[in-house]
């Protein structure tokens, strides 16, 4: 059984790392988590974002959830909002697609056009 005392160890380690971190990227990832999103598989998508961001040590990107975005047939839907407030809406997301969105959009600033709502609604 794990104990709460282990958290003290995690706390110490994290404090050391925190002082090494720089620049505030400040991008936001918002996952649609209403009934429609959850049923379509939004939870694994959100988990994939957390995993992928951690793998690349992108600690300043926040991942949050929201209610129904309004296009239930295209769920799971993810919005990526950059520092200037520009919003990109990705639809029919999967954990596999997440890896590419993180690498191309969040790291390199190139929107993955083929996953966006504009492309899906054509």
């Amino acid at each position, binding site marked *: *059984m*794990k104990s*709460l005392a*282990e*958290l*003290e160890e*995690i*706390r110490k*380690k*994290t*404090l050391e790392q*925190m002082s090494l971190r720089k620049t505030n990227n400040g991008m936001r990832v918002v*996952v649609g*988590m*209403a*009934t*429609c999103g*959850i*049923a379509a598989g939004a*939870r694994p998508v*959100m*988990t994939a974002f*957390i995993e992928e961001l*951690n793998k690349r040590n992108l*600690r300043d990107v*926040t*991942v*949050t*959830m929201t*209610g*129904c975005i*309004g296009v239930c047939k295209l769920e799971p839907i993810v919005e990526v909002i950059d520092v200037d407030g520009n919003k990109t809406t990705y639809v029919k997301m999967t954990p596999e697609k997440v890896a590419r969105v993180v690498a191309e959009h969040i790291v390199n600033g190139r929107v993955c056009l083929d996953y966006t709502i504009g492309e899906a609604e054509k």
Partner: protein
Amino acid sequence: MRDLSLHLMDIVQNSISAKADKIYISLTADKQADILIMIIADNGEGIEENFLKNITSPFTTTRKTRRVGMGISLLKASSNMAEGDLKIYSKKSEGTTLEASFKISHIDRLPLGDLAETMVTLIMANPDMEFELDLSNKKDCFKFKTIEVKEQIKDIPITQYEVLNWIREYINSGIKIIFGGVLNEILS
């Protein structure tokens, strides 16, 4: 919904929309009585009495974008499918409690699913809310409270990856101890 953890996640969204900041979740599996009870209680703004009457109807919803709301009706269907029932108690400006029951051995009872992942995702997205999780099999019980974690980690945010990982493992070990062999999908 494929499993109970997804239903749970969905129902908690209602509590979040009701501006709750404390959410209590309890799962009690009584193997002898062959019943699993899931309770979700919040301190949100509560539900109006006349709205509560038809709350399990898919055409009852508070949202403005359309006239359907599937969350509670889907959970009721899943519960009824396994000879269980769903009840909601609510008092305006005090909070809401939802209780869903399931016959454990029923062939149509949904499996528990990844409960730890549901908790971690909810905590990650709502770091300022307090969550409490109780698991019980009538003999033993397991308790998890975000407030205790926060007291322990002090200045580190609960959304820190390592902390979330610890929470996931902690809850998973609780599930194994409490529900192992009690719910047939979880090995002891």
